[in-house]
């Protein structure tokens, strides 16, 4: 690799890290669409179209396509808070030893508004132990 290529890679990495940092900074502490009926209805449609195949129509983890390496999350009990929710949706989840993220990284293809709308819908399904605010430290 020549000097220009190294410099270019370093610059790209810097831009990426800055972008990731800026992205994290941009996520509000609380879901701006919480309780917004129109956004919740739209988020329900998005959830059913995009998420339900793994997480199930009831969001309880009972989706047909959820058994890659383990069972998918029961989103009614999601307790990691709004910002962590956004992070997981954007960046996905990878289990050790797997060739692929079992939860895909949707960050490049679903916009923030859609992610927030889906979150607002999921909040309406919350059962005991769920936390969509600050979230438990885990």
């Amino acid at each position, binding site marked *: 690799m020549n000097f220009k290529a190294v410099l270019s890679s370093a610059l790209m990495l810097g831009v990426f890290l800055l972008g990731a940092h800026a992205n994290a900074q941009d996520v509000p502490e609380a879901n701006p669409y919480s309780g917004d009926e129109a956004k919740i209805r739209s988020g329900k449609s998005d959830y059913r*179209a995009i998420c339900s195949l793994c997480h199930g129509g009831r969001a309880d983890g009972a989706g047909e396509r959820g058994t890659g*390496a383990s069972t998918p999350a029961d989103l009614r009990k999601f307790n990691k808070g709004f910002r962590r929710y956004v992070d997981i949706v954007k960046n996905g989840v990878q289990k050790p030893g*797997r060739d692929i993220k079992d939860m895909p990284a949707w960050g490049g*293809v679903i916009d923030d508004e859609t992610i927030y709308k889906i979150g607002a819908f999921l909040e309406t399904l919350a059962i005991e132990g769920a936390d969509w605010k600050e979230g438990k430290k885990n």
Partner: protein
Amino acid sequence: MKQFKLRQLAWCISLVGLSGTAFGQAVNDAALAAEAGDNWIHTNGNYAAHRFSTLDKINAGNAGKLKVAWVATVGGKTDAQATPSVHNGVIYFPQDNKVFAIDGKSGKLLWKYEHKLPDDWGGYNVPFFTGKHRGVALYGDNVYFLSNDVKLHAIDMKTGKAKFVKDYAADGFQYPKDFAKSKDSNGYCITVGPMAVPGAIIVPLNAADTGGLPGYVLGADPASGNIKWKANMIPAKGEPGGDTWPEEAKAFGGAGVWIIGSYDPETKQYFTGTSNAYEWNPKNRGGGKMDNVGAASIVAMNAETGKVNWRWTGVPGDPWDFDLPQTPILIKMNGKTTIVQPNKTGYAHYLDAATGRFLRADKFIDKLDWIKGYGEDGRPQGMIALPKEGGDPVTISPGLLGGVNMYPSAYNPGTGLMYLASAESAMKYGYEEIKVISNVRHFGAYQEFIFGNEINRAMDVKSGKEAWRSDEGKPGYAGGMLTTAGGLTIWTTQGGTFKVADAKSGKLLFSQDLGVAAKAGPATYTVGGKQMIVQALGGTPGFGRDEAHKAEFGHMLVAYTVE
């Protein structure tokens, strides 16, 4: 060209058995055509997909004395869905884009072949499929393996080294890509295994649920992997059924192939079931009012030319994800080769294998309300009304996991019974707007499962009546069924209980809780003079979260024998 000729010459030499190895003689055409006995060459046991073995050393008289001979692990990271293939006492087993050769006597690893998926591997539903395989094919001196990323690997049985790896991307079958790394994530993802027939390796292709591309079956040259023929599951314009689709919908219409099919050497026809039509929400493909022939169908093709002889559609317009992904089983009835296929619909369908003519449909599950029945014309009658997009879901039985899912059935010519890995189920099913993201068309549908019990059944193929059942008391499907000339029927429940029953009466002769989910059928073979039964286990019970089993992920192979 010279290299190609040498490769073909080497292939011919291996086929006549001159290059016999420590692993035994090559698998020639006669071996392919034989019934399963000492060897278990085809994933489905034989050409007709009976999953029946002529072995009888383990039988109703001694099955109660079965003991674990060995336990092995291949370190699986997802469901074990393959029935092992066995030749000359060596087991060949695919898992996580690897193939393992295992000593059938001791369970010890002989070699491991490993394929690395591309760095940009990913996409819609692809995490679910990654690492799953339903079998390998054995032919000549080779183990033929299909990796998830649409590559056919010819692996030397003796050394575990690849003789060739054929990539079908240049033929138009690209793999699905990570959303973050490609603007076009759509592609073919292969979980089904290949099948060997004289002169060809059958390569089924599926992209039904990874974004919407049409399904094909390829006939590949065993010496090179090059495509000899290509059969389209969705009929082209001008073919019978070609007018049952909006022409533009054929490009994403699904009808892929999830399973290894069956083969009739007399007519040289290969038969396969096909997947759902795509998208699941039918609005772009006729709204359930067009038949979408080729999807949710059984398709017959000439295995020398790829010419499709007929397509029979079990769920016209497929509005429920009631595809027919099961293997069509070939049974001689009244002197004619008859296809019998128990499937998702809750019916076993009977067709004339020569013509595809519908003969009858036998209901085999207790609760079924999506239709009132099948008419003499082979069409569903009195189907429940479809949901409205964005409206309330409708509740139907069975659910989209089906009366029988992909878990294989078996047929015993001695008892005349077919053994079904079946379940009771229902679902709430609704339609939503169809999203298109990264050139991936999403389902546009969703479901809420209502699980019923796993019930493994024996069905008389002549009368269509149930002969016996084993209600396992929890949701799921057995991994698959095996039956033998020893008068046994063998399966492992979804929860991981290995069971051996009298094939005729269903009386339980042996049972052992193995504690790991079964999603593959067992096989039997002979090594060192002993009959062995091998079962692959692996995964988490159920589709999605299923609290009933209270079982965590596990993975292993277990072999049984009697002393």
